[in-house]
């Protein structure tokens, strides 16, 4: 409102952020908005309690890959705007890792673009997770099942 919303906004955050405040600030009056928020689990991939999750990325390449994916998917799905916020660095269980939001004139395009963009980020953006427990770090070997 007032300020023209950018079509594509991509931000990597190295500190905790409130997903709902970010969405409130970003959202427009477009008819349909689909969002996804992913948080750090309480348990590691082997099922034992997780102390912290560390996220490493390839600066520059990471943002650019997400931007290209967002641009392509926005067109493919006829959506109007995209917000991607992604944490990097050290995170504690329940903190938000990723937020994807898509606005469109219709619900289908908003939902499909949001889902597709999340998958693109998971499979194409150079991020790497490491799970920490008892001062030991273990690189995560793959994405959680869809």
């Amino acid at each position: 409102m007032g300020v023209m919303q950018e079509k594509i906004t991509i931000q990597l955050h190295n500190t905790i952020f409130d997903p709902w405040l970010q969405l409130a600030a970003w959202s427009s009056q477009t008819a349909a908005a689909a969002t996804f928020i992913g948080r750090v689990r309480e348990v590691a991939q082997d099922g034992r309690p997780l102390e912290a999750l560390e996220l490493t990325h390839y600066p520059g390449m990471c943002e650019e890959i997400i931007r290209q994916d967002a641009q392509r998917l926005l067109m493919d799905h006829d959506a109007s705007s995209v917000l991607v916020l992604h944490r990097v660095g050290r995170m504690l269980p329940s903190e938000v890792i990723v937020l994807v939001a898509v606005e469109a004139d219709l619900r289908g395009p908003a939902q499909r673009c949001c889902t597709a963009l999340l998958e693109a980020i998971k499979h194409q953006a150079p991020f790497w997770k490491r799970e920490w427990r008892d001062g030991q770090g273990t690189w995560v070997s793959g994405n959680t099942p869809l």
Partner: protein
Amino acid sequence: MTKSQERSFQVLLFASLRDQAGWTKQRVMLPDQDLVTAEDVWSQLQLGPRPASVQIAINRELVSPQTLVHAGDEVAFLPPFTGG
């Protein structure tokens, strides 16, 4: 630009490859005559055969292993991504 920068390129490792190699970033000299591919660069790192899951980027774009490396390039080896 100094002579060594003119004839060199940068190699970046990420995630588990950093732990394995013990370094993050390295400047490597291009040989004077030979053509060098991204795969050649990997071989010179002596990290064993390249796992099929490790992708290669030159200047932040994914490339095939046969892509030639030029002076000033940034060559990165990328374990499977686990973001999102």
